[in-house]
């Protein structure tokens, strides 16, 4: 496998979205979220702690802080707002089992920007299978009709 081919596969896998369950005060619906890591500092890895974009699972889940950006489409936005928004923030990953490869968790905070304005959100996550699968809950108290979003996190690198 050539590096270019591998990079292409990586690029394609970044296009795979994580499905969302969007829970507002009166509505329940779906959505999709993508995520990218421009920068990560791993304090759990033995060498090369700073990574950008292409982040191996052990670097992330053995203990790290990442700067992330997440474009998202979440349903049920108010009539005067777009369903699209972007989140950018920091997330802390900590290992639970097998240095995080089997099980890890995360705690994050982000600023979101939607057509109607911006605000703060917080998230909590649990990950398994080298971080390929996870469950994250994002709380955005001021994001109307999308206050609570649960994501089945799908991620390869």
């Amino acid at each position: 496998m050539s590096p270019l081919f591998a990079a292409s596969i990586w690029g394609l896998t970044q296009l795979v979205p994580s499905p969302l369950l969007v829970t507002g005060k009166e509505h329940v619906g779906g959505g999709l979220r993508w995520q990218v890591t421009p920068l990560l500092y791993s304090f759990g890895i033995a060498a090369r702690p700073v990574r950008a974009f292409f982040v191996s699972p052990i670097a992330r889940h053995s203990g790290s802080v990442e700067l992330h950006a997440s474009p998202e489409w979440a349903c049920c936005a108010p009539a005067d707002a777009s369903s699209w928004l972007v989140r950018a923030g920091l997330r802390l990953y900590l290992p639970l089992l097998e240095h995080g490869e089997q099980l890890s968790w995360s705690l994050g905070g982000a600023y979101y920007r939607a057509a109607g304005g911006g605000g703060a959100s917080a998230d909590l996550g649990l990950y398994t299978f080298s971080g390929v699968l996870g469950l994250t809950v994002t709380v955005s108290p001021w994001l109307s009709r999308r206050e609570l979003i649960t994501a089945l996190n799908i991620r390869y690198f």
Partner: protein
Amino acid sequence: MRGMRFALLAWLLVLPGCGFAWRAMKRNLAAPPERKVAHKIQDPRRPDARLAALWVGHATVLLQLDDRFVLTDPVFSHTLAQVSPRLVEPGFEPENLPPLAAVVVSHMHFDHLSFSSLDRIEPRTAIVLVPPGVRASMPRYDFEIRELAPWTAYEQGGLRITAVPVQHVGGRYGIDAAFETRAFTGYVFEYRGLSVYFGGDAAYAPRAFRAAHARFPNLSLAILPICPNQPREYMSHTHEGPSQALDAFLLLGAARMIPIHFDTYINSDDAPGACPAELRRQMQARGLSAEQVITLGFGEQRVLIEK
């Protein structure tokens, strides 16, 4: 859980694009419960031995060279990547290990580099040797993790460990193999006139074996993988089958061989027992005896050279 394992196996195995992946996946899902090993050795120290080997399973071997102990590719976990169950339990408990002069890791595939296993042996060793590029894919431990490039050596108290080139594939999670092009190796251990070749996991590469023989002409022992063997065409780029392992043994010119890397996990089309059976057929065809090619059972220890 079964569905999740199926999806993950599909993800991990289909990425390399090989058809056998589906068959291996189905067999993994239908794998029987882990077989127990009776009468595990409690104290592996053999005062009567100059050279002794204990096969824990797969590529994990505890070697005694006089008063020094070396452990290869330590994997004591019960599943690989949470998806591939172990067929036979480890034949030795890591808590019974003597102090180790070194631990070597041949590459970072899940069946050779187990983070939880390294946790369990952490108090027993001061150093773990790995191929180039592997440190950046390992978590922090109390022991030193040192990368050895091909033909470079680590030496401590008269024990010399040299990394020797092999043909395999690096990476741990699939596509990282494309970027970790040097992250696999074999090793030769030398101590007080004894020398042992450990092949880890490798394809048949005559040039590499000839080069190792030229550098180490008097090998006391070669530890060589014999599986996965089938499908041969796919495996030939990365793995020796029993026939190629014997060819490698002859090229290395070692006094004796111990086969490893078989019957512990399902990672091929080979049925349990198929690789050692083929090895016996090939030994017969080449006129090699059971004293030259010594197949150990899980947890079995053999004194190869007495004092």
